[in-house]
């Protein structure tokens, strides 16, 4: 196990980590700009007079079919997509890790139940699962985040349960048990810290998948409901405009790919920095 500072140093040292960090940083800056409202245009207000204008000094990314500034929409869209991804992954991490810990550590009936549910969720086609869940409730960004989270929960369960199974047999855990500490305490104080790096790696990878899943749901008409933009719904809505106004699709498409690339690179960097095995191979 390396310390937090050591990991940061390693992250910054790895090329992909550094590039990923820079790209993600830029995207975060865009999100912040959108959220605190320093951008000159509102992403939702429609302006009939300035429909489908190509990129210009006033509208950096041009305007869409409703005369909305695409730069403002991309910024708001990336904020929405990030919000959905972060909430979905956070939810999946908490639930999945807790279930994986409990199942792996306590074994027995709770483990059997948790493994059963995991198997079921794995066997259920993921996009169809998200799609059905997204149709059940009145759709908003939160219900979509929950739908995506449910798809990712079993991944987190599987990722944590395995190492926990190994850890519980390791000497220092046995030793702690021998001293009569409660099992919950051992689990939180001794087992959890040892799987943090695995979880962090999984979180960074899942973030980029979540952004893409939200985009796929948008494509099937079950993404973030308009008018609030998300990268996925923007790209989807602009597909018909590809020949008439290519910028309406290129801008959100490019930002989406960039965002996912950034997250993936960051994920790689984090894995290199945290995963002792991969570091050992260097």
């Amino acid at each position, binding site marked *: 196990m390396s310390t937090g500072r050591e990991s940061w140093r390693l992250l910054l040292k790895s090329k992909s980590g550094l590039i990923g960090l820079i790209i993600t940083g830029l995207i975060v800056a865009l999100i912040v700009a959108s959220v605190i409202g320093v951008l000159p245009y509102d992403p939702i207000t*429609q302006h009939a007079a300035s429909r489908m204008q190509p990129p210009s000094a006033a509208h950096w990314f041009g305007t869409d079919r409703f005369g909305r500034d695409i730069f403002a929409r991309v910024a708001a869209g990336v904020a929405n997509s990030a919000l959905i991804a972060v909430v979905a992954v956070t939810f999946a991490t908490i639930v999945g890790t807790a279930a994986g810990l409990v199942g792996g550590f306590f074994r027995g009936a709770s483990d059997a139940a948790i493994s059963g549910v995991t198997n079921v969720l794995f066997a259920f086609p993921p996009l169809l699962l998200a799609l059905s869940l997204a149709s059940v409730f*009145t*759709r908003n960004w939160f219900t979509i985040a929950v739908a995506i989270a449910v798809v990712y929960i079993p991944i987190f369960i599987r990722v944590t349960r395995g190492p926990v199974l190994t850890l519980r047999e390791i000497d220092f855990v046995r030793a702690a048990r021998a001293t009569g500490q409660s099992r919950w305490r051992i689990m939180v104080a001794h087992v959890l810290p040892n799987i943090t790096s695995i979880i962090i790696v999984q979180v960074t990878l899942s973030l980029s998948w979540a952004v893409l899943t939200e985009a796929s749901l948008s494509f099937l008409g079950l993404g973030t409901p*308009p008018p609030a933009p998300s990268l996925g719904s923007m790209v989807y809505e602009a597909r*018909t405009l590809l*020949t*008439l106004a290519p910028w309406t699709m290129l801008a959100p498409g490019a930002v989406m790919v960039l965002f996912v690339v950034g997250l993936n690179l960051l994920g790689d960097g984090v894995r290199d920095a945290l995963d002792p095995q991969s570091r050992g191979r260097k």
Partner: protein
Amino acid sequence: MPNRFKSGAIRLGCTAVAAALLLTGCSNDSGDTTPPTNNAPAQNLVIGVTSDVDTLFPWKATQFNTVNVMQTLYGTLVEFDENLAIVPGIATSWETSDDGLSVTFKLREGVKFADGSPCEAEDVKFSYDAIMDEATGAASRSSLASVLSVEAVDSLTVVLHLSAPDVVLLSNLAVINLAILSSTDTEESLSTTPNGTGPFKLQERKPSQSLILARNENYWGDSAKLDTIEFRVIPDETSIVSAMQAGNVQLSIFDDPVVAQTAESAGIKIQETSQLAYHVLQLNTVSGPLADVNFRLAIQCAVDRQEVLDTAASGEGEVTGPITAPAFRSDPKARPCPTKDITKAKEYLAASAYPEGATIRTIVSQGEYATSVNEATNVQAQLAEIGITLDLQVMESGAYVTAWLAADFEAAIALNGGRPEPYGMYNRYFISTGNLNTVAGYSSEELDTLFDAARQESDTTARANLYQQISKHLEDNAVWVWLFTSYTYAATTSNVSGFTPMANDSMQYLRTTSIS
């Protein structure tokens, strides 16, 4: 895009139709099912559709594409022409008794079903009786609400006995949900082997992929020019445009102006047709702020309909009042605030019980048609100017329809279907006993009286006058906020001719279409 036809009439391809009719007149073939051998290339038209038919039973067809397919397979007693006037179908003539309580139809001689069996008065009686039977679950049973009984006098004479005079009956009978079926057929048998009197018959069906129709040589009218029509399922509209560019598909109907524009820029011919269907902000006047007429008038005055049209539908359509049928169309200027008037809106609001404005729970469907959410956001932005907040609830079409039918909304952004006869279009909403009156959320004695009078008035001018009064009553009370009608776009490749799109979305002119 080329100039838009803005006058409110339907744009017609009359010359094309006339020419096609002339041509069909000369090319009557011998009646075998093989493609014509007189050196003419096989006439196989492919139509790109986004969804497969959901039933092959005409009485249960309600979805756009299903209705279109049924229209080519089946026939009705009377039909609409391209001006939406009633013309003969299976019946050649009809006569209403002096008291208006019975209508006698003379059937065309020699009409046959696709299987070769004759279509006679017994079949008409069988069909209408079955539609009226609740166990059948027919979609348009209510169209025959005024019919007491059906009598087959002889093989070519049918009499409908009515409970009260009903001038809209004929236009109801022209709808494919009242198709005439053979008395020997059942829903089960027709689900695999359609057997109608239309210009085409089923050749092959691959569910979710394609439906291929072949010319029906037993058709009573001029034989169709096309040998086959394939309705090919291409779920994504953009992919349909691609397929048309590559020449795999020759005809498609789009409702999204942007898709039509893209297709046009790719060299595909686009014919636009003004629709009877109307975009509307439905208000539920039963309770809350919307029960207050002044509050509703405030909403009506605060909405610039042209702006909604411009932003949501790229200006592709026409601002409308309640009645959209060309023959009776409401004057969109005849309303309390013909144009947006914030001062007046604020006056109305001040006079209402909610002078500070209120929040209105508004349902919006997503996915059913392209412009819904954009209309909603634009209306929302406009109403915010007078302090009225629309709380938009965007739903899947299934959830939306469920909420809509249960009248579980304060306001609803809707695209409601229109009919050539305004009585048939609105009676179910605005008569106090109408099936959808709870959804409409408004009724009044005056409206009941007007509708009743219109149903019994056989003089067209007098009826038009009654419809204007209905229209005025609806507008003066701001029952709903009628917004605009839009276009549909018939896209054809350059080798297709003779297709006339219609305001009721019908593709019946596939029977005169040809391909070179």
